């Protein structure tokens, strides 16, 4: 895999999955996954439905812990060099530093301000000026500030679908995470809203490390620097996006890209 060729000149991977097996109860979902997510790059996870790409994404902030009987059975997941399954890892701190945006935009039925401030509030931030500042920064970074600065107290549910999803991104980056996980963030949006989110991701990649799950290959081409292809719980190929799409090494990848998938 050629993704490692420049490893010596760039910062160490922010997220590193090493030889990981993952099971839901008795049924295995992921086998021997190895993945290195580069610092401040966008990494796309693609693959057919049920291939385990969302499961892999949710391994990175341990959201799978919510599912009883789901667990990593082999290998390890390192975030910022630390095995996140170590006993001394505090889940709330992990998730503060590994933000997540979901497929369905799900702002809380609270004001725009309260949505963005939620993460900071639960981590104990009470200082109004700090909150104000974080809300403004997050909304600016998610390209919402100009649209919404005059109605921060409006209910977030009054926003359009695309705005809601960008608000969710603002909410996720308000705690200044190192990694931003995005689980098919555009699958419920129209093309124009999708375009806005994609533009946003380009800008966010300057400050955050992004891992995005998408079932849209064109989107992976447009937004990502690296692409990983999963099939039936196995990571088939992982390469810089340009190489991945122009010159796939694996036959399986090639047939998936051509759409002649069996």
């Amino acid at each position: 895999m050629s993704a490692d060729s420049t490893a010596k000149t760039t910062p160490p991977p922010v997220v590193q999955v090493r030889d990981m097996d993952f099971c839901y109860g008795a049924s295995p979902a992921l086998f021997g996954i190895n993945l290195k997510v580069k610092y401040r790059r966008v990494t796309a996870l693609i693959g057919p439905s049920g291939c385990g790409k969302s499961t892999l994404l949710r391994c990175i902030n341990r959201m799978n812990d919510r599912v009883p009987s789901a667990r990593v059975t082999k290998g390890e997941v390192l975030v910022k060099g630390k095995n996140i399954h170590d006993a001394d890892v505090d889940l709330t701190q992990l998730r503060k530093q590994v933000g997540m945006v979901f497929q369905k935009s799900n702002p809380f039925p609270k004001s725009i301000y309260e949505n963005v401030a939620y993460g900071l509030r639960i981590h104990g931030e009470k200082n109004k000026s700090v909150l104000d500042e974080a809300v403004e920064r997050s909304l600016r970074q998610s390209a919402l500030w100009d649209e919404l600065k005059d109605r921060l107290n409006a209910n977030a549910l009054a926003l359009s679908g695309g705005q809601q999803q960008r608000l969710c991104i603002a909410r996720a980056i308000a705690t200044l995470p190192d990694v931003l996980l995005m689980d098919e963030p555009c699958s419920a949006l129209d093309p124009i809203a999708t375009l806005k989110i994609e533009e946003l991701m380009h800008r966010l990649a300057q400050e955050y490390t992004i891992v995005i799950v998408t079932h849209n290959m064109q989107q992976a081409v447009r937004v990502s620097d690296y692409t990983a292809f999963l099939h039936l719980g196995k990571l088939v190929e992982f390469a810089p996006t340009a190489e991945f799409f122009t010159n796939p090494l694996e036959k399986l990848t090639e047939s998936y890209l051509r759409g002649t998938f069996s």
Partner: protein
Amino acid sequence: MNQPATANPFAGMKSRDALRETIVRWLLRLGTFFIVAVTVAILAHIMVKGAPVAFRSTWPFVNVQFLTELPSTLHVIEDVKGGRIEVEVNRADQVKAQLGDAFHSETTISYSGGGILGPIVGTALLVTVSISIALFLGVACAIYLSEYARHGNPLIEWVRLAILNLAGVPSVVFGLFGLGAFVLTAPVFVDVPADRSVFAIPLGFTTLSFEGWDTCVLSGGFTLAFVILPVIITASEQCLQAVPQGFRETSMALGATRWQTIRYSVLPFATPGILTSSILGIARAAGETAPIMFTAALAFKDKLPWQKDLPPLPADASIFAHWEQSVSRFLGIFTESVQALPYHIYTLAAKIPQNEYSERAQYGSVFVFLVLVASLAASSVLLRKRLRAKYRW
């Protein structure tokens, strides 16, 4: 083209199906109307008979005496011409003396004079205590079942079975349970344990004695709380489950603990529904008679729960002494037995000889009772509406 224009290509085929359709529709419709008719009949009957007792045609339009006085024995004095005078016991002799030779006869009707303030206050206290306890326990239980308990845990299935069974227990059994558990054995702090104490734990400065709380608001409130607990648990759990899972996921993904998630992203959105279930709880608690018969209610009491004969404080008593007495007077409310509306209605209807005067008191009480429950329900509905507007999703 050649067919006559009158031929109907969509003519119905079987008249039997059509007939069956009509019969079924009318059966269902009649069943529904019958329920409405019964409800209207009950309400109309009580309105017609009860409203004249509670209202007056002249200012202030409500029967002030009926709503602000304690129940008392009614004396009806008849003179020789057949005229009747209704008086309370204190004035009976005076009226008789005035009538002199014109006095013909005197009838006394228990509980039917005065008003029903005692029962109103008692029911309000019982409902307040029971709904507070039931909401606390019920919501706690619902949160545990909905948010913390894992599916498929056999213990949780037992808990659910227990809740279902609790809902099926006859109310008189709750009454007896309350008598045994709260009236006779609940723990209290005393200096010297009573003879009836089940067992006592000396704590040095005081003794924790399991000798019961006696018949009082607290015993009745706890008993009623268990009667309405299943309703509140079940409804609250449904309301919690109705909050989208996405709220929980998002909150957890932002690093919130489970309790923070519940506190800020689940509970606020379930509250309107939980309040609705508490309306049902309030109406049920206010109406139950059997659970309070042994635990809190008296057929007759000539004092309100806070009208207690406490020793007068010395003139130079400190502010602290006054404060202490106020607190003990307030807490004393909950250790008094009370009259309650449903039990008062039962007494009027079943425990005294029936005549036009007792009937009047009866219908008046039922009417006021219904109005109180209805207005409680209405205010909860309003509260829920306001919360919904704030926390809709």
